[in-house]
């Protein structure tokens, strides 16, 4: 029986399989690379691949009469988490989709918090 997982987890697994493969894979080949009993249904796999193609994370390549094969758009080595995290956090503003733990508070917000807390000096 197929294991029920959320979409993000499936996308992660598919990307990892494509990164570790030396050539583009078909949807069925990707399913074969899942651990025994953990592969999703073919329709689910095609939906996940379709979403990854729309996000440009995965490239869809025609394989002639055999349908389509899929490959990661860029190798794993081209992504360094440090650079990506920094870029992601730098791209956030009050109109963006990202919200950070650090917030986007500026000098005026700090002054307001200081006045509310009754502190004139910067916090220790």
């Amino acid at each position, binding site marked *: 029986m197929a294991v029920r997982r*959320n*979409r*993000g*987890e499936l*996308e*992660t*697994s598919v*990307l*990892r399989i494509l*990164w570790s493969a030396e050539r583009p894979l078909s949807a069925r080949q990707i399913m074969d690379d899942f651990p025994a009993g953990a592969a999703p249904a073919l329709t689910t796999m095609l939906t996940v691949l379709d979403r*990854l193609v*729309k*996000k*440009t*994370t995965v490239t869809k390549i025609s394989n002639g009469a055999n349908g389509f094969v899929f490959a990661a758009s860029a190798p*794993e080595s081209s*992504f360094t*988490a*440090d650079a*990506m*995290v*920094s*870029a*992601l*956090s730098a*791209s*956030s*503003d*009050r*109109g*963006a*989709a*990202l*919200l*950070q*733990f*650090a*917030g*986007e*508070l*500026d000098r*005026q*917000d*700090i002054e*307001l*918090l*200081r*006045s*509310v*807390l009754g*502190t004139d000096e*910067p*916090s*220790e």
Partner: protein
Amino acid sequence: MIGLVGSLILAAIILTVAAPVILSYGAWRTRWPRLALAAWHTALLLGVLCLAASLAVSILAAVAQRPGQLSNWFEPTVLVFFGWVGLAVVGGLLALLFTYTEPIGRDDRRLQAEFSRLAAQSTSTCQQVHGFDVVVVKSSAPIALSLSGRESRIVVSSCLTRALSASQLRAVIEHERAHLVQHHRLVSRIAYLNRVCLPMLPAARQLNRTTGLLVELIADDEAARQVGAVNTANALLATAQLSDDEAMKLRARRIAARPPRGSLSSSARVRRTLATLAD
């Protein structure tokens, strides 16, 4: 009819001018940030509704005029003129809104793709917390982020997981989860679009600024309710020390000085710790 249209426009103007003055007065908004956020956005909604109603009334009144009733030409002329001007303004605002919304949608898709790659990296680990993917990525920056959308995710850097205790880390995750569950992105985006479409209005700038602050305070309060005020204040302090962030230190002191309702243990030890943190 002119009287009704004029009253509605006047009400919108009064709301635009008076709401920021009233809602920015005093410290109550940092004490009850959720109430403050609701009040700000209700004022915005009421202002928009007043303007929309004035436009609808003037258009309906102008359309309802019959040629035989034109003994008094002044009122229909004003209503028709206002109707056309209003429609032109609405069209202009919609065009502006589309201009700003389209690149935001593109950025959203790019961010979703980057998050997918981040989550899939071999150095990343992923776990589920209350239905949300929490991805820990190898990074030396003390960062925690949440991305809302069809696939809402929380990203925490390995630097932060090393620096914080398990309870403090949970506070960070609960803070980000509050952003996702309470749709803070949507609220922030409404305020942002209002500001970029009406940059000349001080009230629009103030709404955007206040929303940015209040959603952080609301998320801090929610984290404090879930994992305790001490853990939340300590998580904020520890992260602030890593990034030398003055605002986070003040947020920690706010939580410690006046823990939100439902977050405080009655134990003397907790009270002593909070008093120390607030000093």
